[in-house]
């Protein structure tokens, strides 16, 4: 599409996105869809939820809160607010093959191409005023410190308050207290300034039930012949693991997924553990994996906090949930977690997609490689970018996937 046409189209969509009444009309469409699909399958459930979320986010009847992946959505749902995860939404924009324009827009406004593309794309979508306007921002810096710079820039662009939940790196009990106090003072702040009232009971109970279903899914996936296909598909379900935890939407989604998984045909493919995320734009990686008889047994981002959320101690239990992300972010803990998953899911190889702008994960590659080599577990690294197609390298991916398959065949 020509640049000029694209700019005009963006202006038009951005204009429409600010017309709240338009989104009220979506309510009718949602009602019609529900009639049409009385018992929706997984794809239909996802579609319905997308329409519903778009309506809630753009209609703005409740405060819209932008947040980062490891901030528990239960906190937001319990305050009757609507969470928006820009990092998740970036994946969706990329899947729609629409990432180029916002990425270019952010670059033109001094957002460096060396930053993480999840953040660059979200900044582009913000500059174009296409993402829903936030009332305020809440983020944790648990997974990466880049998130802080990203949210600070969002606060500067949208001119809205930003609340950071600072997550330490060591010392569990001091950290739990520190995070719990921060959550409590945030809740007080929001009550005073925004009139938000928190009702934990229902949201926590729903989250705990969902967690139990996810645990069943995990147990099923530990069986040697069970594979969730196509490979990496489970990463498309991340919104249910993060954004919608604590809602009926996640609970019913995972209940359906569990039922579907119980009926899958036994598989004899090589089992892999998938680290980090995957390219979200259309790409042939899943197909190549499948063709080479490789399946994904488990994804590290699907590892869930094993404890219960308790409405008797909401802030401490949420703090513990946030701290569970140390499994992904603290080097030593991540490596032993990866080795544990290798054992539990009986995988034969580990794959990591190295995201170009992600310092936190790439900075850990050396010790991770060493630990896996020591245990003689093949480790496949795919370099590229999960959002920005300019860094894709299909040929390299194909060759490396084939090499891994050959190695695993040889090991049979």
């Amino acid at each position, binding site marked *: 599409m020509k640049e000029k046409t694209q700019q005009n189209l963006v202006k038009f969509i951005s204009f429409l996105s600010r017309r709240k009444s338009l989104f009220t009309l979506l309510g009718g469409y949602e009602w019609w869809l529900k009639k049409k699909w009385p018992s929706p399958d997984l794809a239909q459930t996802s579609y319905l939820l997308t329409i519903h979320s778009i309506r809630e986010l753009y209609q703005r009847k409740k405060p819209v809160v932008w947040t980062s992946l490891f901030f528990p959505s239960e906190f937001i749902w319990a305050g009757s607010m609507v969470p928006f995860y820009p990092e998740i939404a970036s994946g969706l924009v990329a899947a729609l093959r629409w990432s180029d324009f916002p990425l270019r827009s952010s670059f033109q406004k*001094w957002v460096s191409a060396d930053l993480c593309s999840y953040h660059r794309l979200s900044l582009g979508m913000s500059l174009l005023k296409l993402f829903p306007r936030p009332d305020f921002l809440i983020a944790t810096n648990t997974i990466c*410190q880049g998130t802080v710079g990203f949210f600070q820039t969002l606060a500067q662009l949208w001119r809205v308050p930003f609340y950071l939940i600072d997550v330490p790196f060591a010392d569990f009990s001091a950290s739990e207290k520190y995070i719990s106090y*921060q959550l409590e003072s945030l809740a007080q702040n929001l009550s005073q300034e925004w009139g938000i009232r928190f009702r934990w009971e229902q949201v926590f109970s729903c989250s705990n039930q969902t967690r139990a279903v996810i645990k069943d899914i995990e147990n099923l996936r530990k069986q040697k012949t069970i594979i969730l296909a196509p490979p990496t598909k489970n990463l498309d379900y991340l919104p249910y693991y993060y954004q919608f935890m604590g809602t009926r939407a996640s609970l019913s989604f995972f209940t359906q997924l569990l039922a579907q998984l119980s009926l899958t045909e036994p598989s004899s493919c090589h089992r892999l553990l998938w680290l980090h995320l995957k390219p979200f734009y259309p790409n042939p990686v899943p197909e190549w994996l499948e063709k080479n008889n490789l399946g994904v047994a488990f994804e590290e981002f699907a590892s869930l906090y094993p404890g219960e959320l308790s409405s008797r101690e909401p802030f401490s239990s949420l703090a513990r949930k946030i701290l569970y992300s140390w499994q992904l972010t603290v080097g030593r803990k991540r490596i032993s977690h990866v080795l544990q998953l290798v054992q539990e899911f009986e995988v034969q190889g580990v794959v990591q997609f190295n995201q170009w702008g992600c310092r936190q994960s790439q900075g850990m590659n050396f010790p991770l490689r060493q630990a896996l080599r020591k245990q003689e577990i093949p480790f496949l690294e795919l370099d590229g970018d999960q959002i920005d197609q300019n860094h894709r390298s299909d040929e390299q991916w194909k060759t490396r996937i084939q090499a891994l398959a050959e190695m695993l065949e040889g090991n049979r």
Partner: protein
Amino acid sequence: MKVGYFCGYLPPELIRSAGGEPVLLEPEGKRVKLGEKYFPTPFCPFSKVFLDNLLSGSWEKVGTLLFTRSCDASRRLYETVSSLPGGESSFLLDLPHEVGPLAWNYFAHQLKKLAHFLLDRTGKSEKAMLSDLEQEVKSSLIIRRKLTEEYQAGRLPGAVFLGKEGGSPPDFPRVVRGGLPLFLIASHLWVRDLIGLLEKKSILVFEDTPLGSRRWLLRENTTFLLPPEEDPFLSLSRLYLEWKAPCPRGPWRERLAFIQEMTRKLGVRGVVYFYPKFCDFSLYELKIVRDELSLPVLSLEYDTLPNLAQWETRLEAFLEVLTP
């Protein structure tokens, strides 16, 4: 015992009170070979150069290394160093990202842990350390206050703050030459090279770097009074989190206010933003500086090697715009 550190949030006051000798580490530039093995291409050049210096024996006499949880690169650098032989003598100081009473208390607790780590190695008694620390914090505030006044009055330009090993204060006041005043925001590497280049072009350069003034200066709204804290760790914590000049890690409003205040007081004509490739904090701050500061900004990027010729060309073009 020599205690090496590089982050501006590691208090030499504490190292000294605990019986250590603080050594501000300034890695030397050379072709990075060893560092590349540990970190990928899109990664902090400082971490690579640091690791290279460490592994090639530049700091053999430094017994203990201190790191902070600031950026992703620095925590990975700590993890890498602590996994190497001898790595058990390194320590990661957990540095909160926010300001306010919660963060001050948390940081005070972490500083205490660092003190015990050091005392275990130096053998000094806790009691002696506590009384020395109180004194250290008091005199540090007096020195910092004086330096801030001198700096703001334009009497401490150039490299005067740099290379003061162990956090000892620079000599002041200085005799000042004339020249076009510019504000230099930079990181750890090649700062001396760039200041040299700027001075060669008759520029009166005021640096804001972790090797120099940023470790010393106080914020504008600082009361300059030592609060009546009973706990010297809490005083120290507040000195670093609340009063010391903030760094690009933020919080961005405070950081921006600091830059605006300094550039206004110094009457500089422009800003040179000298940043490491792949440094997230710098990349985000550069955008905010460009958007929010009403001064011309020259951005110069570097990786693991200095590139004086290229910087000079860019600088000359910038100066032409500033002094037509």
